[in-house]
């Protein structure tokens, strides 16, 4: 490593962060970024600002970081996505502009990952815990995704009448096709790591606790072919183009949808936030279990409305 590379690494690692823990692997020129937002592992404004600083620092020293690997410091959670308390606040305030600003901060981070090949950086997301909504959207923007077997992931936003607006459609369609994207976004269902692999959304599923070893093996495999891999990924980007302007348009629609959420929708969002907190407090059930309960309730309600008072089924039951 040259003295200037050494200075660059010191600059990248030297910034004081509250929600990130950085680590440098000199052998592979690999920057490990571990996120840890307490008490709920989600994309707060401060956490996104710190991520942007970190990525901008990497971009300031081209050629120094060859691999960037992101994982979570919070056990069992990769990321729960958006800051639900902030969403509730801004939706209740009817503040489209601030929601749009939040969404744009998200897509700026995603766009950095999407264009990482042009900065000479190969990216890996390592999911050792659940990824919901924006947490999964963020992961999908990495070149490779490794998921441990216990992981569950999905886009639950439709359950509270919203949709994932920061790249879910674009990246899911690119990786798995329109039918899978349709199913995932419109059902709000959660998927196991194995189901994600079958749909091509993750690249590798490993036993729980084996993610770290698998990641090192993957990076070691790519490293000798780093230049060619990045060139191929750049070509992939051209072949299956994702456009920043499209991401912006979707964020705008998302912000307008968010301010139209009803009190019932916001209450469901609050239920989910409360469940996230319960898990932090050490309870067995958390956001994943709450989403399943909300799904079940929605299914019952749908069944109930189908068996309405005037329906033939009800009449025959009577």
């Amino acid at each position, binding site marked *: 490593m040259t003295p200037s590379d050494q200075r660059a690494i010191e600059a990248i690692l030297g910034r004081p962060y509250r929600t990130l823990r950085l680590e440098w692997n000199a052998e592979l020129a690999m920057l490990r970024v571990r996120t840890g937002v307490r008490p709920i592992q989600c994309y707060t404004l401060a956490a996104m600002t710190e991520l942007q600083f970190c990525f901008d620092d990497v971009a300031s020293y081209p050629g120094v970081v060859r691999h960037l690997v992101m994982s979570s410091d919070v056990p069992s959670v990769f990321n729960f996505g958006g800051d639900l308390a902030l969403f509730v*606040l801004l939706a*209740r305030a009817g503040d489209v*502009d601030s929601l749009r600003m939040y969404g744009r901060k998200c897509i700026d981070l995603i766009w950095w990952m999407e264009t990482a090949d042009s900065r000479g950086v190969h990216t890996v997301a390592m999911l050792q815990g659940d990824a919901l909504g924006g947490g999964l959207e963020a992961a999908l923007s990495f070149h490779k995704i490794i998921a441990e077997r216990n992981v569950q992931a999905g886009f639950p936003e439709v359950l509270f009448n919203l949709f994932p607006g920061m790249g879910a459609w674009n990246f899911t369609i690119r990786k798995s096709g329109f039918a899978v994207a349709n199913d995932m976004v419109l059902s709000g269902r959660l998927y196991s790591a194995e189901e994600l692999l079958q749909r091509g959304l993750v690249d590798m599923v490993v036993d729980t606790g084996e993610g770290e070893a698998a990641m090192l093996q993957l990076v070691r495999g790519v490293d000798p072919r780093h230049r060619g891999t990045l060139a191929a990924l750049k070509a992939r980007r051209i072949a299956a183009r994702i456009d920043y302007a499209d991401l912006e348009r979707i964020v705008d629609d998302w912000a307008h949808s968010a301010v139209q959420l009803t009190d019932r929708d916001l209450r469901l969002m609050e239920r989910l936030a409360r469940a996230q907190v319960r898990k932090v*407090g050490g309870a067995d059930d958390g956001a994943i279990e709450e989403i399943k309960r909300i799904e079940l309730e929605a299914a019952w309600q749908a069944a109930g409305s189908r068996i309405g008072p005037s329906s033939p089924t009800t009449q025959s039951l009577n």
Partner: protein
Amino acid sequence: MSSPFGDLVLRTDEARRQFDSQPVLLDAVANGMSVERYRAFLLELYHVVWHFNPITAAAACRIPDSLREVRYFLYEHMHEEMGHELWVLNDLEAVGVPRAVAEAHRPGPYTLGMTGYNYWTVEHRHPAAVLGMLYTLEVVASVYGGPFSSAMRESLLLDGDNGISFISSHTTMDSEHIADLREIVNKINDPVAMEAMVEAAELNFHHFGRLFATLP
């Protein structure tokens, strides 16, 4: 964020996050709290609510004519909040605290610090600081009040809104208020007023959080 309200949200977001990271609050929102702790909370809340309108009045009488709409907004707000300290007294009675005991309660240091600061800032810093106080209290009520009142109802097996009437009703009421607050904050284009609002919101989040954290 380009709008003044957006700036207020952005610049005080860390203070809000610090507030909602308090372990006592996290536990209360998820699981409710013991009746003893809930009584202690309501006793502090009574004083916060009692001082709300006097602080707002102190601000309103100092608002310059250039911010006349803010003054009219405060008048309406005071009218809506009038008598709400009695709701807290009713809730206290519902959970076993007689009115005389509640009225004689000496508030804790964070309640005193918060109310004292709010009087000071509207008198000596900028009267628009009251909007920072309002922002904090409405965020607390509209974002955290719903889950908290549900958790309290479940944990203390309360009947309907009995014992949680103030928090439960303000969850809905302040949801509407926060949209009104956004409109009025967006009319303020004065950096000094903005600084005062931000400081007031940060201090109120901090002290309200500490109020929770230090409940016996």
